[in-house]
Each structure stands twice: as C-alpha cells, then as structure tokens.
C-alpha cells in the first residue's frame, strides 16, 4: 500500500492531539512549553505534506518561517519562565495563582 497524503495528515493530527493533551493536563510550565513545540511540529508536518502532494513549494517556505518564529517564541517564553522562577521559586502552574486572589 502506497503512503499517501492522508497517512501524513493522520500522524500530524495525532501528534497535535498529544501536544494539546500535554498543554491541558501537565502542570509543569516547562513541559507545557515542550507540548506547545509538539503542536507546532505537527502543523509543520501537515504543511510539508500538503506542499509535497499539491506540488507547491510555498508550504515549505511557510514551515521555514514557523520554525524561525518558534525559535524566537521559545527564547522569550523561557526568559519569562526564568524571571517567574526567580520571583516565586516555582515552575508549577498551580502555584502561580496571583491573579486569582
């Protein structure tokens, strides 16, 4: 059986679902961040697969930009986590309820 577009899309969808589950269920800020990366990578896989099977290189250019933006986003987000940790000595979302009170 030949590997077609739908195979790649199924892998991408399941990977995205895993990332979303991690964001919703895990309570460690760093692991939540890694799950976000997982979701971005799932979107990248779908874009590359569409690009290949639709004979259009624009999807790959888009993935290139997504990777760049993700790198910038990770740098800023991790700096925020470090600043937060310095102030509150925790990286758990359950301990960070300042706006709740």
């Amino acid at each position, binding site marked *: 059986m030949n590997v077609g577009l739908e195979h790649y899309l199924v*892998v991408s*969808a399941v990977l995205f679902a*895993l990332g979303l589950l991690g964001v919703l269920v895990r309570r460690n800020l760093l692991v939540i961040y890694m799950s976000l990366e997982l979701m971005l990578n799932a979107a990248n896989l779908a874009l*590359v*697969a569409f690009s290949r099977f639709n004979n259009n290189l624009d999807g790959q*250019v888009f993935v290139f930009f997504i990777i760049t933006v*993700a790198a910038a986003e990770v740098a800023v987000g991790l700096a925020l986590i470090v600043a937060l940790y310095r102030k509150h000595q925790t990286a758990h979302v359950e301990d960070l309820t300042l706006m709740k009170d």
Partner: protein
Amino acid sequence: MTEFFFYFFAAAALICGLLVIANPFSQNPVTSAMFLVLTIASLAGLFVLLHAFFLAAVQVLVYAGAVMVLFLFVIMLLDLKAEERRKLKRLGLAGGVLVVGSILGIFFASLARSPLPAGEPSTLEGSTIELGKRLFTQYLLPFEVVSVLLLVAMVGVVLLSKKDLK
C-alpha cells in the same frame, strides 16, 4: 522501502511524543526534553521522505540543536528538585481527554470527507536552491520582517533576564 521508513518514523514520532507528555517512569522535565529531541529527529526523517531536504536539516539544526539546548539550559538553571509526584486532578484529566478526543474526532471527520489529491506524489524537490530562490524573491519582505522579529526577541530576552526586573 519508503513505506517501511514512513511507518518507522511515524511510530517513533508518536511514541516519543506520548512519552514527552506522559512518561510512566519519570516526571523529570529532562526526560521529556530528551524524548522531544527524538520526536523532532523522527519528524526530520519524515521531512526527508517528503523530499523536504532543506527543512529536515533546519529542523535538526534549529529545533534539536538550538531550541532543545535552550530548554536544557533553563532546566539546569531552575534547579528543579526531583519533582514530587503531584496528583493530577481527575476533573482536569477528564476534561483534557474530552477536549482532545473531540478535536481528534473533528480532524478525522473532516479528513474523511475532504477531497484529497490522489495518491501520486509530485516531483517537487524541497532543495536549498529552490527554497532559497523563493525566499529571496517572492518572500523577501517576510524574510526581512522575520529578521527584525528575531532582533526584537533578542532585546526582549536580554531585558527580561536582567536582575532587577522593573
């Protein structure tokens, strides 16, 4: 042969992705980071199968190299003690599974009824030459904007990591 590699890389990506978010043996973020590296490497393999050679290289260099090193640095910096196993809230877990299940359902339903281009893949090659031509002609403006974005992110990170954050 291609089929074998596809199933191998897809299974590796999915299993390692699962181990990133739910590892039964260790709650340590370092383990999650390592499995994320493996996931990204398998995705790079899938990119090669899709003839996106440049993106596969960038994926390994930028994600598995730079981004994950940044993650590991921060984990080291935070000095997270052997994190005590906190009980997951039942309600949160059930809600998460419900949301993710419904999203997966929507995905597969739309996948089943959408007209996908028929099986034969194109002759498209995601080589550096082709991608570079696009980047420096048609996509020149976004390319430059992204460079500004990286500069802004750099300035922001320097500002955020100052000792006395005002």
